[in-house]
């Protein structure tokens, strides 16, 4: 093969002839993700104020056990926090039992991968901008080769959509019967955005039909493929909207539970 490849000169970190603000996009992604990580970690450690009446924060759903020391709500699947749970130096809350699933799903998502490789790892910092490291393994070798398990996280994520849809329906069951509050709408938008994100997944697109070269003789799969492809086109948009809204939903329920927000009943 061409032996003159050695003549290619590499650029140093941040070196580029680009004259536009190439750094702002990576910076925005960096700040956006960081803000979410900080908030969600903080919220997960709270172990309190994750429910308010019929509402359950999506960061605590499914609520397998009620958090230690919390009164039993209608949301808990198996009742109170079990006594056999080990006491660790850092408190574990019900959030930690489930957050690995959506966390892992987003961490291995094709869109997020591309975005955080740029924003957090500067690989590359932006298109046509020099990199800090010369060594490169990409996703061909360990550890990033593990990103290929994404489809397994997808299976779990689809189950979570079902659970969150149930939560949104449950959010209409007030003490005095059926009703719609601002929180019901917040949680409904949450499951719609999360669904739009999850059902636009590249792995799902492949599984429903992308893996076949001929779909004209498989009407159901062709329909699904077209539908997933449509959502997939806006995958980045839904990734951000759903990320923001999950955080906001938790915040809303938390603020209501703490008595800072008043939840208005619309119906």
């Amino acid at each position, binding site marked *: 093969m061409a032996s003159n490849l050695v003549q290619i000169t590499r650029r140093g970190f941040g070196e580029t002839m680009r004259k536009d603000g190439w750094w702002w996009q990576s910076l925005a992604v960096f700040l956006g993700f960081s803000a979410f990580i900080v908030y969600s970690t903080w919220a997960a450690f709270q172990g309190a104020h994750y429910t308010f009446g019929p509402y359950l924060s999506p960061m605590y759903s499914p609520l397998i056990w009620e958090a230690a020391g919390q009164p039993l709500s209608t949301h808990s699947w198996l009742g109170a926090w079990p006594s056999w749970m080990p006491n660790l130096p850092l408190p574990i809350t019900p959030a930690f039992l489930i957050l690995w699933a959506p966390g892992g799903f987003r961490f291995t998502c094709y869109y997020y991968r591309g975005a955080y490789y740029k924003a957090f790892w500067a690989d590359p910092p932006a*298109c046509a901008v020099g990199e800090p490291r010369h060594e490169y393994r*990409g996703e061909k070798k360990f550890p990033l080769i593990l990103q290929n398990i994404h489809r397994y996280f997808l299976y779990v994520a689809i189950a979570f959509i079902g659970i969150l849809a149930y939560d949104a329906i449950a959010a209409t069951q007030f003490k005095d019967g059926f009703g719609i509050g601002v929180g019901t709408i917040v949680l409904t938008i949450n499951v719609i955005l999360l669904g739009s994100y999850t059902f636009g997944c590249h792995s799902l697109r492949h599984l429903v039909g992308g893996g076949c070269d001929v779909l004209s003789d498989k009407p159901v799969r062709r329909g699904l493929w077209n539908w997933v492809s449509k959502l997939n086109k806006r995958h980045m948009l839904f990734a951000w909207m759903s990320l923001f809204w999950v955080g906001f939903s938790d915040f809303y329920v938390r603020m209501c539970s703490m008595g800072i927000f008043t939840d208005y009943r619309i119906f």
Partner: protein
Amino acid sequence: MVDYRTEVSEGMVVLDAVHQIQAESAPDLACRWNCKAGKCGSCSAEINGKPKLMCMTRLDTIDVTKPVTIEPMRAFPPIKDLISDISWNYEVKKRIKKFKPRPPDAADGTWRMQQSDIDRVQEFRKCIECYLCQDVCHVLRDHVKHEEFIGPRFLVYSAALEMHPLDTEDRVDELKDEFGIGYCNITKCCTKVCPEHITITDNAIIPLKERVVDEHYDPLKKLVKLFRRK
């Protein structure tokens, strides 16, 4: 880097300015071009640091009150001025298994296929081989993995063959090993620079990565295959 000055007028593209400089002050300034219509893929360069076709970049889209930099594509060895040696690309293409259609569907040696099945690869066939995507890809440009990675252009080419409804060849193993699809970290710079607006990463590379997962990294699929073979 050499500085040239030239007068610009309305409607000019970067390639016009280069030609004007050739005519006025630098008759030996080397540049490739052919169609001046964005269809031959010859005039690729880096304009103010961004990989672009010179003939499709209008001067009114860039700030000409400051000096404009035009460089050859940096992911390939330089030859002279704006020309770099793109022959590596031709070598890569030869390594990809050719189209191998199934036996003809009709007695007259022709095939039948549905438009909806061929739609998917139609997009990939718009490629004009300008190699701008190869140029911007950091795997080639910054990590010089030319020996281990075929680059976005040839992942698009592989996708066009691999997803073709008539094709019977299997290129998944090469994609994983010699063609190094795993080096792509889906940062989408190739998609951003493609003058034909091919959705390289989302429609070609990721679906191929998923096919590689099917064959090599999905433990459940492997198990199923094991039983099917028996």
